[in-house]
């Protein structure tokens, strides 16, 4: 692993490992590699690892490990050879989910289309034409955080966030996109909604997708909604 790693304490029960070298893509890959190694090592003192774009928050129990010792463990994990990480090279899974674009489920479709200089129809075609890499789990609960519609085009957030948007809302903001896993307040722009069920508390495997997997969309009409309702992400795996 390259140079440019900062380990900083975040209170008495967490540290942040941040990658500063290389470009955004390399940093994200460094984060994923660290997560894989920590999953492989299964250090009992580490209770969870919340990874995002250029950093991972490593939560630990200060009763079972001292901060200094945890830092050493993390340096060890960072120094391990990539190729020994069995989980690092897992094939990405692909999911293709139905979306009802525009209308009530996607009230910002017109605004977003204007922003990209496209018609609504062209924006739908554009949005459903590509694969989106799941970068990390975001808020709310395990929502897949993905790249935006087009590199370098940033979509402004709403000034006044909506109090509650339904689960399955397909949203864009900044250079990111997201599907809301559960109902939540939202400042993001909603372009549609999927009937796919993203997360479940009935299983300890919270969701079918992981960071590193790929998501794509296909447009459906109002009449098609009922036939997809209740299906889970696993059902949309391709």
């Amino acid at each position, binding site marked *: 692993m390259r140079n440019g790693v900062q380990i900083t304490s975040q209170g*008495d029960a*967490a540290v942040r490992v941040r990658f500063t070298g290389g470009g955004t893509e390399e940093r994200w890959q460094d984060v994923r590699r660290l997560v894989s190694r920590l999953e492989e090592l299964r250090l009992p003192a580490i209770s969870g690892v*919340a990874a995002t774009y250029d950093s991972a*928050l490593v939560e630990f129990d200060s009763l079972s490990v001292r901060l200094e010792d945890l830092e050493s463990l993390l340096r060890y994990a960072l120094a391990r050879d990539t190729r020994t990480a069995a989980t690092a090279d897992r094939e990405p899974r692909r999911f293709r989910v139905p979306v009802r674009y525009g209308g009530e489920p996607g009230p910002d479709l017109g605004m977003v289309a204007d922003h990209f200089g496209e018609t609504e129809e062209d924006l739908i075609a554009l949005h459903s034409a590509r694969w989106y890499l799941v970068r990390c789990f975001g808020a709310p*609960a395990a929502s897949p955080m993905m790249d935006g519609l087009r590199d370098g085009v940033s979509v402004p957030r709403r000034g006044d966030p909506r109090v509650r948007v339904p689960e399955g809302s397909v949203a864009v903001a900044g250079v990111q996109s997201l599907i809301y896993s559960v109902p939540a307040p939202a400042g993001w722009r909603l372009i549609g909604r999927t009937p796919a069920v993203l997360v479940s508390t009935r299983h300890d495997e919270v969701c079918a997708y992981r960071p590193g997997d790929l998501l794509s969309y296909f447009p459906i009409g109002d009449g098609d909604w009922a036939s997809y309702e209740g299906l889970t992400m696993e059902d949309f795996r391709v």
Partner: protein
Amino acid sequence: MSSTSGTATVVQATFAALQDAGRPAGASWGIAANGAPDQFAYHYGNALVGNPTSLPSLETTMTDLVVRFDVEVVVAVTGARAEVTIGGLSARMNQALVVPAGWELTVRDIRDGTRGYVSVFGGFHGANTFLGSVSPDRTLGFGFDLTPGSTLSCGGDRLDTSGRRYAFPVFDPPRGPLLAEGELGVLPGENRDLFEDRASELFEDDYVMTDRTDAVGARLEGRVPRRLDKGEILSRALPIGAVEVAGGKELLVLNRGRGLSAGYPVVGVICTASMNVLSQARPGTSVRFVPLTIADARRLRLREAEVIESVRERMTTIIDSLRVTRPGGPRERE
């Protein structure tokens, strides 16, 4: 005599839920830890009833709780000060108590804090778990809310309390070291350099707990450090206890039910032990931030654990002496 498993029936409850230590492993899934907001009171209650490891307890927030048990059980009430009665008779907090079969345990008039915990020997069980925890996750709509009429199984191995002539010992929790009442220990936040005087304003005045506070975050009114720049911060995961400056006149402290990632700057992180204290702060009460070192934060955490474990050790010994190994066995009284 306590039988292997009985039923607890909720008679009165308003804001009450089944709680435990939460789901720390959730972080890897983008799922909040949640769990009892006052982890000390939760574990302390389990220690008092001699549970070798902590099991689910009942939590009631700012409202009265009445529970009836259909078998004899050993319970303890911990957390915020409240009036406790068993079958109408006044009882103590922070003490193992025998509730006879068919009697009601009441926790009323919670004051000097927000929430109390009812722990039972053998724990409350039968509720669904998610990532190993029964605790509510309001974001996901998961949890076991206690409402009048709801039932849970409870208890564990048989105990025989009929020969006990003395009450169980009272263990009022000792005051923690280093911090005075209303003081919260704060470690440096990663973005304090973005603020005037490195956000030292945080330590200059009191903050008032508001009623816009829930499992996700606590909003504190007071002096908000002034930010020097307006740059965007890339979303990253933030720890429990993070003190965010989200704009406006308030600070947002991230509670155990927080969304994991956020883009607001963090000026401090309240230490684990002080988060238990903050969870008991009623709206309108004042708190004060005190800068702490990591070593001191660890001392506070170790001290809490020692207090819990010493009570747990003493009470498991006492409770073990009451264990009925099997019906008609050598330790059963005639």
